[in-house]
């Protein structure tokens, strides 16, 4: 195991500098500041470098091969990675599955899976949504039946982000149809090369295959490929929310979009137009106010406080703000808003790229509509 310094003992400023130097020294020759996700073949060098230095799983405890960062330090790491424009790696294993394994996994599961996430041998995908179970996730119908020593799985998952890059997938399956829908769900771990697993890529509006459908046709996995107890999968699936929501609501996406808007406006010759400026400063205030709100949640994370349902406010406002910025970009870009490729080959000037990349932010990870339902009930205490 790699021996790492105690990052949490560093001052924030020192740690920030450490991360900055690390990134500058180690980031490989792959794209930076991409708006869309890179595939495994392109981002693999960065994953392996992070892996080699013990930096691939920042939040795992050190005894499990992680960096053991506090939430505050983790945020600094994210900020510096974003500042440099580091591509996002296939991080479902490090971010989603790892913590669940640590909490619910058996000793054997931990011993088998954790090192393989750390090394990059296992690249995981998340199989939650189905054609009939999106916002209403608990309506999953993909089912698993115990047949001797195997689970036999039949059904379909969809919107599986970068599923085509993964060699393992964790899925929510129905294992009891006779109970309340949340109570009959289990959490299975499935190798993508198991007989009966097929995938079909789905192109998104950016014409990239970022997600896929995964079909399970009499797929068999050993009975011990279950995480947690039978019919307790819903609890595990829900356990991850909370801390991550704060990061989703961070003002970074909007702030970087503002700097692109600035450049697009300069190119379009409207930077000095008072009408444009009036709208620009209003958006700028939105970003700054969001930053102040975000800091409140970061302080809570730093202080080890639990994050309540109210964090949905961050996600709603951030994603809608990002979209509003992208919409002003489109207006400012005028006829160039319709170009498929960046003007002058400069991605910063490509209004449509931001516009399209902003669309899923109000849909995935809890749609704005679902988030508002949650806020209305859990925070505003309005009746059903």
């Amino acid at each position: 195991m790699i021996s790492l310094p105690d990052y949490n003992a560093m001052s924030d400023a020192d740690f920030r500098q450490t991360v900055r130097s690390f990134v500058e020294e180690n980031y490989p020759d792959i794209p930076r500041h991409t708006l869309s996700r890179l595939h495994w073949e392109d981002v693999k060098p960065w994953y392996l470098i992070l892996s080699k230095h013990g930096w691939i799983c920042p939040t795992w405890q050190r005894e499990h091969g992680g960096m053991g960062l506090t939430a505050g330090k983790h945020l600094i790491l994210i900020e510096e990675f974003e500042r440099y424009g580091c591509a996002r790696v296939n991080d479902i294993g490090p971010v989603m599955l790892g913590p669940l394994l640590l909490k619910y996994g058996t000793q054997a599961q931990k011993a088998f899976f954790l090192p393989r996430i750390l090394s990059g041998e296992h690249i995981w995908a998340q199989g939650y949504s189905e054609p009939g179970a999106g916002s209403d996730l608990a309506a999953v119908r993909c089912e698993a039946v115990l047949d001797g020593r195997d689970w036999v799985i039949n059904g379909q998952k969809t919107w599986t982000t970068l599923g085509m890059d993964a060699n393992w997938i964790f899925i929510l399956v129905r294992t009891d149809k006779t109970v309340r829908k949340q109570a009959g769900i289990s959490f299975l771990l499935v190798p993508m090369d198991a007989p009966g697993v097929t995938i079909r890529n789905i192109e998104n509006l950016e014409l990239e295959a970022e997600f896929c459908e995964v079909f399970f046709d009499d797929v068999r996995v050993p009975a011990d490929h279950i995480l947690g107890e039978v019919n307790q999968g819903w609890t595990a699936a829900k356990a991850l929310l909370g801390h991550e929501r704060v990061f989703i609501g961070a003002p970074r996406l909007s702030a970087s979009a503002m700097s692109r808007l600035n450049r697009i406006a300069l190119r379009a010759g409207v930077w000095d137009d008072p009408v444009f400026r009036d709208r620009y400063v209003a958006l700028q205030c939105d970003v700054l106010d969001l930053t102040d709100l975000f800091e409140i949640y970061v302080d809570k994370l730093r202080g080890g406080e639990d994050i309540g349902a109210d964090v949905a406010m961050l996600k709603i406002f951030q994603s809608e703000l990002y979209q509003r910025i992208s919409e002003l970009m489109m207006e400012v870009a005028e006829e160039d808003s319709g170009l498929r490729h960046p003007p002058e080959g400069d991605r910063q000037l490509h209004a449509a790229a931001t516009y399209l990349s902003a669309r899923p932010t109000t849909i995935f990870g809890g749609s704005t509509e679902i988030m508002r339902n949650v806020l209305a009930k859990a925070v505003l205490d309005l009746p059903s």
Partner: protein
Amino acid sequence: MSESDTEDWQENARMIVDSARAIVPADGSLSRVRKARFHGSGFDREVMRQAADLGWMLMRVEEDAGGLGLGMRETCALMEVLGGGLVPEPVLSSLMAAAVLQERLPEAVLTGEAVIVTAWQDKVGAQDWRGGASGGRLLGRKYNVPGAADADFFAVVTGGGVAVVPRGAEGLTVTSEETLDGGRTGLLTFDGVEAEFLPCERVEQVLQDARLAHSAYLLGLSERALTITLDYLRVRKQFDKPIGSFQSLQHRATEMKIRLELARAAISATARRFDTGADERTRSRDAARCKLRAGELAMLVAREAVQMHGAMGITDEADIGLFVRKAISEANLFGGPRQQRASLAALLDQEEAA
């Protein structure tokens, strides 16, 4: 307003809309449109030939110039159908060329053998068109020329007159870029192209007409996108209920509907005013107002259609995506909202002075 020609124009419009069914399938299929994306010139010459056969090239040519002398009501009716079908061919640009050239429209265009499009825009983000002519030659650039990738003639509009320039003219460079909807937008660069400049006094009027006609295209597009979205809201279920039963989506859907009917009303009333004689200020104001309304409508419907389709909305395979891509590709043609509001604000000064 004179309504004496009410029945005439309605009958004409009906015939033209019917004829468009040869190009826009009555069953709403978008398979031709989908297949045509992202390769070749972005449009089908055969469809342009059909359009010529159907007489569309003569719609905006006066009767005494040998045309049909049809009005903006008929033109908007046609454009609305083309918008609903996301027709990628440069029909409007050809009609503009015909309206500018009148009896001087090349014969090969009338027979459908050749395609002509209009090149007028001096720069991105402005509605200027007077550049390009210098000392009897064409110089400089014309932006956003639809169909440029495979057109045979360009009706090049300048302050010194209009020139019909064949594709192969010496000193003319035609380039084009892919657009998000899978088509191409052209850039013409003139390096002292020799040309005959025909006098033309109706350019500003043709541009107003085009702004209105393009608004009708966006209206058709938006209406079909709303229809598809409403259909989805009726059938897609979550929490054991059709999502269209959720009040917040219902209320947002009614807002789209209201904006759509405002656009329809404005476009239809403006077309009538254009056909029955409107003064220059009214023409200028109403063309801008229709374009503002229709452009914002298309962007609103695009945004809400994606959101209401949820994850389906951000796939390329769902047809709604074709509407979204077309909306964001074309909403700003003939001037985005910024330009329209600026020209309306300029008219405000005239009103004060008046």
